[in-house]
């Protein structure tokens, strides 16, 4: 065993580093999901599509308006905030008080709309998101690391810290937590609940832009980009649906697990474990610890 470990340590480290870095990027996307869930108890099955849509907007601005990346991102942010508000106003607000299945289905509908709309507007070929980051990998202690991952990781950590601070310290953040905890009590305390639903969707839009730029750079901007959204569920279940720190831990675990599974199981079973392993982990969590590592436990006998 120790011999095997000594032989494989380098490989394991390589897989782990890559997995953890990618995990941070998953955390970035999952953050948007958690923000919406925290504020409005709504489940957003269209998170991946929001990321894709944001990526399309930024790339389209850069390509057709000939602006630089920074301005493109600013336009993207503005557009996605407006889009988030429109979705909240037009789709989610009429559904308040309806069963969960309605809200899930509505966001699935939104996902379909975005997946159909984006190529109709911007065409089918994959668009390239160019970032001013070197493409050659760095070598750290014998392990190759892509610079884009490191930058993206930094950005994710920054955003997560910012949102963590927002929820813990700022007045609006505390109000949002109150809304998430109990809508009626929040209303009684004079909090404008609907206002904070809208804020949550706008924030999800902001996160989607960051996710769209980074993931768009990694995978290229096309319809397949939305599939990143499928990784959101294992991440948020592991971390706990309403926890910002949980997103980071969940993302890291999912990244590491899928990377190790891909490295060791793929040769045995013939590929595809990358998409499969996180879900197995997730269903185990759902059976034994459904509220995740950091989620708020709602004790309820069903």
């Amino acid at each position, binding site marked *: 065993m120790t011999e095997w470990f000594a032989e494989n340590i380098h490989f394991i480290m390589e897989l782990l580093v890559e997995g953890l870095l990618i995990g941070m990027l998953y955390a970035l996307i999952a953050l948007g999901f958690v923000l919406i869930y925290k504020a409005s108890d709504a*489940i957003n099955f269209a998170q991946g599509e929001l990321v894709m849509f944001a990526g399309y907007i930024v790339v389209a601005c850069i390509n057709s308006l000939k602006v630089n990346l920074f301005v493109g991102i600013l336009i993207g942010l503005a557009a996605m905030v407006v889009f988030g508000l429109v979705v909240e106003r*037009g*789709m989610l607000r*009429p*559904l308040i008080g*309806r*069963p*969960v*299945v*309605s809200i*899930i*289905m*509505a966001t*699935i*509908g*939104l*996902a*379909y*709309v*975005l*997946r*159909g*709309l984006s*190529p*109709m507007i911007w065409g*089918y070929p994959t668009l390239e998101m160019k970032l001013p980051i070197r493409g050659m990998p760095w070598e750290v202690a014998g392990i190759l690391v892509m610079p884009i991952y490191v930058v993206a990781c930094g950005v994710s950590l920054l955003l997560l810290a910012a949102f963590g601070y927002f929820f813990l310290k700022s007045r609006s953040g505390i109000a949002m937590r109150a809304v998430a905890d109990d809508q009626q009590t929040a209303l009684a305390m004079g909090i404008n609940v609907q206002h904070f639903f809208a804020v949550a969707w706008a924030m999800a839009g902001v996160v989607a832009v960051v996710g769209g730029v980074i993931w768009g750079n990694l995978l290229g901007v096309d319809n397949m980009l939305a599939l990143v959204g499928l990784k959101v*569920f294992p991440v948020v*279940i592991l971390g706990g*649906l309403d926890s910002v720190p949980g997103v980071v831990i969940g993302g890291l675990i999912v990244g590491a697990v899928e990377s190790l599974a891909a490295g060791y199981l793929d040769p045995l*079973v*013939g*590929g*595809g474990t990358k*998409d*499969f392993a996180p*879900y*197995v982990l*997730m*269903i185990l969590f*759902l*059976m034994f610890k*459904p509220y995740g590592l950091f989620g708020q436990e709602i004790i309820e*006998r*069903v």
Partner: protein
Amino acid sequence: MINRECGNFKRTYQSDMALFPVPLQLYTIIAIVLIFYIIFPLLANEYLLTLGCLIGIACLGAIGLNILTGFTGQISIGHAAFMMVGAYTAAILNTRYGVGFVLCLPAAGIMSALVGSFFGIPSLRIKGLYLAISTLAAQFILEWTVNHWKWISGGAFSSIYTKKPDIFGWIPAAALAEAESMLRYKYYIIVILLGLGVIFALNLFRSSVGRAFIAIRDNDVSAEIIGINIFRYKLTSFAVSSFYAGIAGALYCFFYETANYEGYTIIISIDYLAMVIIGGLGSVLGAIYGAIFIQLLPILLDIFGSWIGNTFFGGAATEFLNQLKTFTFGALIIFFLVVEPEGLNRLWRNTKDYFRVWPFSY
């Protein structure tokens, strides 16, 4: 179904409990049976027969999902995966063990029911959103397993080619000779099974089991207090729903004479969810309306879209049409949820209510 419900005074318990309170209801059913069991299959061409078969299978699957989601209140985003279990069970039994079609069907249903109940176990601890995600996991795990386990998928492209559906070794001679008769034969099989499925589902909700399902949906805590064993009935609901899914999956596989995992992906699961939501949650007829609607939608969009393509784009724009389909599908789901959450079934009831005292509304 189409009768106006007014001036119908019941004087005895018998008439209150009657299956058909008005003779017109009986005639409607007879007319429907006549049309879809005799007139349609005799007149329809190959295209219409294929469409009829696919709609029939979709109806069966949608009724199954509606039992779970609409009547018991448990969300499932893994319905297509349970159909896949049925399809591969039937295909493996049929090709490798030489089991006939008639026995393959219940076997497929039972296998699906077992797998479905297994994935229903998390529903005992979690509900709502968590259950949705756990069934989503079931979808991915089953899809992956079928695709990667060589014994199940049978190697290349994960396809298993089945034999033609036989009834204890008998296939009509005309069906073997001619493609259209084969379709007609398959159509009869599907429609007869669909009829049985509808009757079973309608009667299920006149029984104590069905009422327990509804009680769990309406309020699980109250249901437990009045003595309903939630554990048992939730799993029963998963099993019944998956049984329907298994039968539908097996029929789908025998219809194409191929079992292939591509017919049972997450997209199909979402299609089924859309069927029960657009049709109407908690209604057997609603599931049928929804299935017909979702199956016909791409065809209508095709006709409409090719008209747009010819008028505005001067020719075929297939890529554009595909995107338009996706877009319209999503937009319709949102539209129905926001505007008419109880679906087509409710629209039909509203129409009937309007005509209840028509033309003397005031």
